[in-house]
């Protein structure tokens, strides 16, 4: 069935099709229409779930962790400040090995207030142990929501779907709604195994751990995060077999013969495709890689995709004061392993913070600057800023 849906409604459809059992959520722009849609779906009996209308995002994540410990499939959604408030509980979800799924609609950090798109909220959660899956379009948003449950539950690690504020959350696109029975075959009910609060098997979870054991628990998380790279690819494969749409952790577009490769994520990927097509028409050898996963970081795949390229232009709609954009840090660090001749020059660009448009024109200008400059002027170059 095809429907015209906003990104936020696509998330709600994804959660509904995944037979989510417990939703705990709190409103925040631009996420709110996700939880509004889920409330409507619950009221209309489209999904048999328990909906906890909590008093904060912190409690939303705590309740999801509790629900997951009770053996249920749990989901929430948030943005910006809400994700920042959840930060403590994001770490907690990972440590407790609760496969909670969260949709984060990227929103800029206050102060000053801004409700518009900016990845600083989600990239700030890089060290929490959440799998992070960035989306380019609304179809990908819906499909990724379903896949996120499968990935998270098979690894007992929480997973975050990330979509751009307004460019996706409030923009409608015609998308294919997968058949509910097919989704049920693809994603069976959550099986918590023996890792839940079972009254017939009284166990204590999360208690004080001495320094002879804590490191082992952390190592297991790292081991499973590394395993996640293969699991994500397997889930992508299986999804493609059933539903005919294939996703990649690192997707190359026109990159094979490109001298300059753009490295992008989220909706900037979709604009970059247009920019690259236009530049290609003018005979420019430009391509891109689109990154879907920030955690686990697809180090091997990004090395493979960028090895031997001359220049890589990374567009970060986020930034770490005192350092650089996060995607640039990650890619730079991964490519360091390459021998000097194969290691591309890295041009890190900061653009589109607080929802400022990253248009085809902006992407073209980034390409032209990268092509023209023999070396980057700085570790990060800010695009379109009126320096005052």
């Amino acid at each position, binding site marked *: 069935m095809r429907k015209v849906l906003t990104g936020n409604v696509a998330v709600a459809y994804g959660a509904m099709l995944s037979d989510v*059992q417990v939703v*705990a959520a709190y409103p925040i722009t631009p996420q709110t229409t996700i939880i509004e849609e889920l409330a409507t779906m619950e009221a209309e009996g489209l999904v048999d779930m328990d909906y*906890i209308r909590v008093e904060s995002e912190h409690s939303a994540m705590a*309740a999801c962790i509790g629900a997951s410990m*009770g053996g249920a499939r749990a989901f929430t959604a948030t943005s910006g400040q809400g994700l920042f408030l959840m930060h403590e509980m994001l770490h907690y979800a990972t440590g407790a090995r609760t496969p909670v799924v969260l949709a984060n609609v990227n929103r800029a950090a206050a102060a000053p207030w801004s409700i518009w798109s900016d990845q600083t909220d989600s990239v700030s959660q890089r060290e929490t142990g959440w799998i992070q899956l960035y989306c380019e379009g609304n179809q990908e948003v819906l499909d990724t929501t379903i896949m996120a449950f499968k990935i998270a539950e098979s690894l007992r690690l929480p997973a975050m779907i990330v979509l751009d504020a307004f460019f996706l959350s409030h923009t409608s696109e015609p998308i294919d709604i997968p058949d509910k029975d097919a989704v049920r075959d693809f994603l069976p009910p959550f099986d918590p195994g023996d890792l839940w609060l079972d009254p017939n098997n009284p166990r204590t*979870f999360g208690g004080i751990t001495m320094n002879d054991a804590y490191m082992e628990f952390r190592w297991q998380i790292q081991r499973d995060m590394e395993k996640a790279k293969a699991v994500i690819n397997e889930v992508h494969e299986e999804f493609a077999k059933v539903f005919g749409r294939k996703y990649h952790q690192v997707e190359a577009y026109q990159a094979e013969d490109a001298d300059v490769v753009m490295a992008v994520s989220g909706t900037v990927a979709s604009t970059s495709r247009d920019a690259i097509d236009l530049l290609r028409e003018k005979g420019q050898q430009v391509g891109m890689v689109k990154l879907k996963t920030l955690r686990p970081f697809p180090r091997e795949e990004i090395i493979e995709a960028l090895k031997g390229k001359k220049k890589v232009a990374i567009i970060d709609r986020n930034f770490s004061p005192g350092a650089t954009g996060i995607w640039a840090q990650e890619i730079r660090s991964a490519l360091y392993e390459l021998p000097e001749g194969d290691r591309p020059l890295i041009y890190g660009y900061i653009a589109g913070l607080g929802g400022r448009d990253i248009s085809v024109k902006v992407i073209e200008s980034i390409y032209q600057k990268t092509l023209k400059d023999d070396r980057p002027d700085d570790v990060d170059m800010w695009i379109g800023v009126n320096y005052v």
Partner: protein
Amino acid sequence: MYSLNQRFDNRDIPEDELLTSGNVACAGCGASLSMRLALKGLGKPTVLAVPACCWTIIPGAWPMSIMGVPLFHCAFETTASTISGIKAAYRKRGMDDICVVGWAGDGGTFDIGIQALSGTAERNDDVLYVCYDNEAYMNTGIQRSGATPIGSWTTTTPVKEPKSEQKKDIDAIMIAHKIPYLATATAAYPHDMIAKFKKARSIKGTRFIHLLAACPTGWRMPENLSIKVMRLAVLSNIFPLYEVENGETYRQNVLPDEIIPVDEYMHLQGRFRHLTSEDIKDYQKMVNKRFEHLREEFEKNR
């Protein structure tokens, strides 16, 4: 309702022990005894969530545990929201008979956890929230909390500048949420306490039990005084034992035959040792005033 001198029947106390021996509480810990009695009242199936507090430590370090019921150690401020989530999962999985209990200290309840607690109570989620109140952040080493009584010494309210504010009236706050059941209890009155846990288990919606739990370490007294001091708190009306249904029907459960002066309770504890007789008089007035308000409510229901 029964008077203090009423004879209790120990056959009312279930024999089942849902804790094994070997906990690591301090000697004379009121919180440790409280859990033993509470679980006797609750029975199975019961599931607990415990935030950062003394009870993080008491069950033993991983992989040891004294618990005979499942326990999830949750984040400090999340007891109420965690149990709301656990209960939702059980409801969806057809296990609604499981009693889901949050077990938090006074810091986790009066202070950092009050937002989540208020949310859970306002939604009337079907959970039992228990605050074992030892009147300071005891696990971190006796720092002042919103539950610390006025005049008390703690490590963050030294004798030269003891706590200058009254104890937060958490009962009044919870009663204002119109929850179906609220009770106060203390391990010095085990029959009363067990009866209240049994009753709480039988009620749907948010239930709140406020336990006074003596802490010899933090109250600066010998450990063999725990039960006595908890008893004196009741007899002096500092901690009256009562229950409130639906935020309106008040009932006093233990009626002391004679009210003792607060000084008898306070002078046994080093945390109050610096107080002058004037201070104690003021304290007495404050206790009388609060009890007067409660008495009016008890009278309404007579």
